[in-house]
């Protein structure tokens, strides 16, 4: 769908690495240029017309994000550099002051590094314990296993909505309900889900949600931290400086601004945020449900064909997202990726930043296809054609 909107697709490539980043439609690129060419002043000044215009454009995007994820208040939307920064801000700004020695954080072994390392940091500095929810045979998280994994010391559950290697969609709403009954906070890493699955933070009732613009057709270097207002009020800013302070005279008299500005120190990525707004409008015009539906069909088409190739081992046959991880038997994933690259097919090889997942699936490195709405059945046919001949892969991978 909508291939004509993406200038990158004018060249001869098949892009299957949407889990890493998505391509940008022309309207998003144009919006970036519009800022730099027409009103390229700083935000939050407003003393002259173009500066006022910047403020309007920038804050307008906060409204678009609020509507996109159905947040209750504008102040619940904090702009960051990306999901990684957002997760660090939650772990360090909210949970570091709150958690005590012996408190437990629950994650899984299929989380991305960004949802592992900030918690390991708290384990090493605060004596917090990081525990893992056991995954089922399909490497899924089930509510039953969450129930089994919690203890009276569990204070936080932090999970990706969709994981970046297995691609499973977690039952977030059910987990949130259960967590809250037990006074446990729920943090959701939405990096892989936000552009693929309708996200309603009030319906899901998550405490924090993090995501990146660049994985939903927006620019790189922009992300969001959503938090329930009463919780965000207690997030300590990790970055101090211009924009976020109200006044200061000496070290004892410092006053910070209110949300959301308090957590957005320094000149933000103005062009990025403004262009991000265009990405949201663009995706909404297509319809997230329509995207999800199409991806599901594409994935089924891909899986059905991959299964028929005897020397391909699929890690996640079952999965409702557009992510498929697999290996060609006895060939290192990176060599297959190099081979596909010779035919301008872009796929990712490696551990995909999920370095503790190998303990769970028994495979360290995989090839990953991550689909988006501009991928086509014909592209999948070409991929399958290239993967069907193992002799050819061995012949041409060098």
């Amino acid at each position: 769908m909508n291939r004509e909107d993406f200038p990158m697709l004018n060249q001869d490539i098949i892009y299957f690495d949407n889990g890493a980043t998505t391509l940008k439609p022309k309207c998003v690129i144009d919006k970036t240029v519009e800022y730099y060419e027409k009103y390229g002043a700083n935000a939050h000044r407003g003393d002259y017309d173009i500066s006022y215009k910047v403020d309007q454009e920038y804050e307008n995007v906060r409204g678009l994000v609020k509507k996109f994820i159905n947040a209750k208040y504008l102040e619940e939307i904090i702009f960051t550099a990306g999901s990684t920064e957002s997760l660090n801000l939650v772990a360090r700004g909210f949970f570091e002051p709150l958690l005590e020695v012996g408190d437990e954080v629950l994650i899984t072994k299929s989380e991305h590094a960004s949802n592992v390392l900030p918690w390991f940091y708290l384990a090493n500095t605060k004596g917090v314990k990081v525990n893992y929810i056991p995954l089922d045979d399909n490497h899924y998280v089930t509510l039953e296993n969450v129930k089994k994994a919690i203890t009276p010391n569990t204070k936080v559950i932090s999970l990706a909505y969709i994981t970046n290697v297995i691609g499973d969609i977690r039952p977030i709403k059910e987990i949130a309900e259960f967590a809250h009954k037990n006074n446990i906070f729920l943090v959701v890493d939405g990096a892989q889900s936000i552009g693929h699955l309708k996200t309603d933070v009030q319906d899901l009732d998550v405490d924090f949600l993090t995501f990146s613009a660049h994985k939903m057709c927006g620019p790189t270097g922009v992300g969001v931290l959503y938090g329930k207002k009463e919780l965000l009020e207690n997030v300590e800013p990790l970055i101090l400086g211009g924009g976020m302070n109200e006044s200061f005279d000496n070290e004892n008299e410092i006053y910070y601004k209110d949300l959301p500005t308090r957590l957005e120190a320094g000149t933000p990525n103005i062009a990025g945020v403004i262009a991000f707004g265009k990405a949201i409008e663009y995706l909404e015009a297509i319809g997230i449900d329509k995207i999800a539906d199409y991806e599901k069909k594409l994935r089924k088409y891909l899986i059905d064909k991959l299964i028929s190739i005897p020397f391909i081992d699929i890690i996640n046959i079952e999965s409702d997202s557009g992510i498929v991880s697999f290996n060609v038997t006895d060939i290192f994933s990176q060599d297959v990726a190099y081979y596909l690259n010779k035919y301008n097919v872009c796929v990712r090889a490696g551990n995909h930043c999920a370095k503790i997942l190998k303990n769970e699936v028994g495979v360290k490195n995989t090839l990953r296809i991550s689909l988006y709405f501009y991928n086509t059945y014909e592209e999948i046919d070409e991929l399958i054609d290239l993967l069907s001949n193992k002799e050819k892969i061995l012949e041409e991978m060098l």
Partner: protein
Amino acid sequence: MDENLRRDIILDNYQNPRNKEIVLDKRYIKVNSNNESCIDNIDIYVLIEDDILKDIKFSGEACAISTSSTSIMIQNLIGKSVSESKMYIENFENMVQELAYDNNLLNEALVYSEIYKQGNRKNCALLPYIGLKKAIKQYEKN
């Protein structure tokens, strides 16, 4: 070098890598070789006595170019002195980086003489040398 011969040597050393085994013997210097841009990750074990590289082994998971390059490097350097090895390393690196080198020294490693044409694979060929240099440095420090 003939294209088919080149491919045969690389594939042979990839599919049947020589000296690939985990070493527990404490006399060996163990170093890790990895680079940030890819997922290759190998351990290299080097036994150096009286300035001679008496034995070298490796273990780990890596792509065809890295694995074969490691296998070939090890076969070429077992029994060589530390100074001969350094000369070999320098020549190999120069070859990969398109600088002047002495092709009489490199034997089978000449299969990578045109690897520079695939920029993203240069680091694969160089991977084992990162570890070997670390091991020699450690030996010299002691």
